[in-house]
């Protein structure tokens, strides 16, 4: 395990506490009712989830989001469709409250139209990292107030889904650059977009090559290996890690297949069913993001990424945080601060990634 990481696990079941003798209880006390109390409280307060989708135009990011949450997340026409390619990267954020069986979820989706679309894409990741850091900053400011709110609104990005174009070869330099930077600041889940253009064998080969690329460049995507707590987690997460990146297809159109109404894409040679495991791995992505690991994503963001940001922030003493923009008293050119995340991850192994650190 990397000794430079913050801690073995964000939700360690081994708290540092005095030696406690285990006690035998002779009868029923009722301690387990505390779980119900927790549930009631959580349902009353509601949940928050912030997701960001990053990728080039036309890879189906917006459609994917709509498919994930089975609703028209984008009110007006989907950004990017029919509109001219924006000159600079603009992040668009939209918030919804969705409810299912009494559970309220406040969902915020951030899109990045214009990413990687310019001729010169140098430093095109700066707005994204700037946005992520801005959310951390906002939370930090709320946290260090004297009179704090009861519940600090959480706008930090919990998960970033990165769409890899289905070239079938390997990760491109732009992908690698961005992933390296993103992985240090936020949980990243890469997916192969528009996977209906690849056959199953091509998909597998592509996946293996991508995994190989990620290993070579020491990019740790979610679920990170170092946060596995116990053997069960490791087994479960290994299975997921084996299938990352998922090959997904998104759609918001419904068609009739075998008498059932399914989401899919209709082509001349057949209908690609989104929720069919034989066709694409959309279900795996949905289960990972929503059904099984949502809380874990939030925990890792809060306990690891946010804490790393906080450490870096509090160690810098020459930047005044309040104000309309960053007031940087150090003699470096002002601009969106580059991710000061846990840059210690695999630093020794990396040979080509030292351009962020000279800012600090």
């Amino acid at each position, binding site marked *: 395990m990397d000794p430079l990481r913050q*801690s073995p696990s964000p*939700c*360690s079941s081994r*708290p*540092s506490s*005095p030696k406690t003798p*285990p*006690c035998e*209880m002779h009868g029923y*006390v*009722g*301690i*387990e009712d*505390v*779980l119900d*109390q*927790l549930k009631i409280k*959580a349902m009353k307060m509601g949940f928050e*989830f912030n997701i960001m989708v990053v990728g080039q135009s036309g890879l189906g990011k917006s459609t994917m989001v709509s498919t994930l949450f*089975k*609703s028209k997340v984008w*009110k*007006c026409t989907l950004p990017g469709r029919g509109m001219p390619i924006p000159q*600079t990267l603009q*992040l668009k*954020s*939209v*918030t*919804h*409250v*969705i409810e*299912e*069986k*009494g*559970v309220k*979820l406040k969902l915020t989706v951030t899109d990045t139209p214009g990413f990687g679309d310019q001729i010169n894409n140098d430093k095109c990741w700066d*707005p994204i990292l*700037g*946005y992520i850091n801005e959310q951390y900053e906002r939370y930090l400011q709320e946290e*260090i107030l004297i*009179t704090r709110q*009861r519940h600090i609104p959480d706008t930090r990005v919990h998960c970033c889904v990165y769409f890899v174009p289905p070239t079938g070869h390997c990760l491109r330099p732009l992908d690698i650059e961005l992933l390296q930077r993103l992985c240090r600041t936020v949980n990243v889940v890469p997916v192969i977009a528009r996977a209906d253009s690849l056959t199953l064998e091509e998909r597998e080969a592509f996946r293996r090559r991508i995994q190989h690329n990620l290993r070579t460049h020491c990019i740790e995507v979610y679920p990170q290996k170092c946060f596995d707590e116990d053997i069960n987690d490791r087994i479960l997460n290994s299975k997921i890690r084996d299938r990352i990146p998922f090959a997904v297809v998104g759609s918001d159109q419904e068609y009739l297949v075998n008498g059932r109404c399914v989401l899919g894409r209709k082509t001349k040679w057949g209908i690609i069913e989104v929720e069919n495991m034989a066709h694409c791995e959309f279900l795996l992505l949905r*289960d990972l993001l*929503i*059904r099984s690991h*949502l*809380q*874990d994503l939030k925990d890792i963001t809060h*306990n690891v990424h946010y*804490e790393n940001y906080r*450490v870096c922030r509090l*160690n810098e*003493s020459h930047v*005044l*945080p*309040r104000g309309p*923009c*960053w007031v940087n008293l150090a003699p470096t050119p002002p*601009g*969106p601060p580059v991710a000061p995340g846990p840059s210690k991850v695999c630093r020794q192994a990396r040979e080509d990634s030292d351009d962020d650190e000279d800012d600090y």
Partner: protein
Amino acid sequence: MPTKTTCPSSQVSDDEQKKRENTRSLTMSGHVGFESLPDQLVNRSIQQGFCFNILCVGETGIGKSTLIDTLFNTNFADHESSHFFPHVRLKAQTYELHESNVRLKLTIVNTVGFGDQINKEESYQPVVDYIDAQFEAYLQEELKIKRSLFNYHDSRIHVCLYFISPTGHSLKTLDLLTMKSLDSKVNIIPVIAKADIISKAELQKFKIKLMSELVSSGVQIYQFPTDDETIAKINASMNGHLPFAVVGSMDEVKIGNKMVKARQYPWGVVQVENENHSDFVKLREMLICTNMEDLREQTHTRHYELYRRCKLEEMGFTDVGPENKPLSLQETYEAKRHEFYGERQRKEEEMKQMFVQRVKEKKAILKEAERELQAKFEHLKRVHQEERMKLEEKRRLLEEEIIAFSKKKATSEIYQNQSYMASGSNLKKDKDRKKDPGYRFELLCFDVRACEINGGRKDAEEGREGPCTMGWP
């Protein structure tokens, strides 16, 4: 309209407003699956384990340990404490309890020696200090740069069970005073201990009296929350039963064909878990089954935040600066740091000046001393010289005298020999001596002189012949 957040950054308040306008409900066309979210949360909590800290405040022997044993259905190893402690102390013990898949780290803090002293003025202070110390520890951890809050063993007191003596009359002054000083720091649940002493009728009156006293003194005890529909009703009814009249016992007595926890008296058996006999079941239900989570939340969001706010304001941090502009912690840190830095510089300068001054003074003193010593030395030297010269002078004189004496001696001997030759015999000499006193006198004088010269001769030059040799040719 979706919000545009363009880089480098955006106005904070503007964005908030836009987001608020933006948030609207969305209907989904199918099952997404995030209803499992509470379960995910619960699973995470199970993995982490729970932490609960109870503080028991009450006189020695009022039944605190027994009640805790009964509440948690175990025998926490504890022995009777003495009544003779000079000060109130707090003793904390942590236990780990398991029930199905829930792990609870329970910490029981007992006051030892409460109410035993003759002068009880200082009795409540250790309790307040202990609670503050736990808050302080948490605050320190939270303010650290490299912190690990998820790993932190939370030792803040979540609930304080205050044991009231079953006198049947009213609250004691000590109780009032202690509760008043604790009510803003911890959730207080008052209980009437050893309630089997009081009869039912007396109990009702006692409870009413106690509650009215608490209300009139402005003591804020913990109210069970009534905002959630599922538990609002039961909580509201329980609020009316406060303070709970409890009986604790781990001894079992056979009633009917069951073994129940009870206290056996000659006149009957008081069953602990019988609702008619005591409110123990209500207490257990409220404390553990229904409101444990709420107690923890209140401690964290109300009492701890209050402590934190007071502490930070004490240290000089504020949220609003001198011109009512929002001031951040960072700015305050910076300002304070500059201030301290300047102060330190100033002090350093001062000390330097003082040091230089002292050195100068010391140098002057030393120079002065040196000069004095020099003068003394000169003076002594001079004196010594003078003495020496005097001595030399004396010596010279003495030597001259010696020479004079020896000369005289030589001449007198010559005269003596001459006179011997002239007279002829010794006898005659004697007679003559008698006859001729002048001659005799000369001889005596010569003898005396010879002795003197013999004595002096020893210091004078050697080699000179003695008087006996004188006269021999």
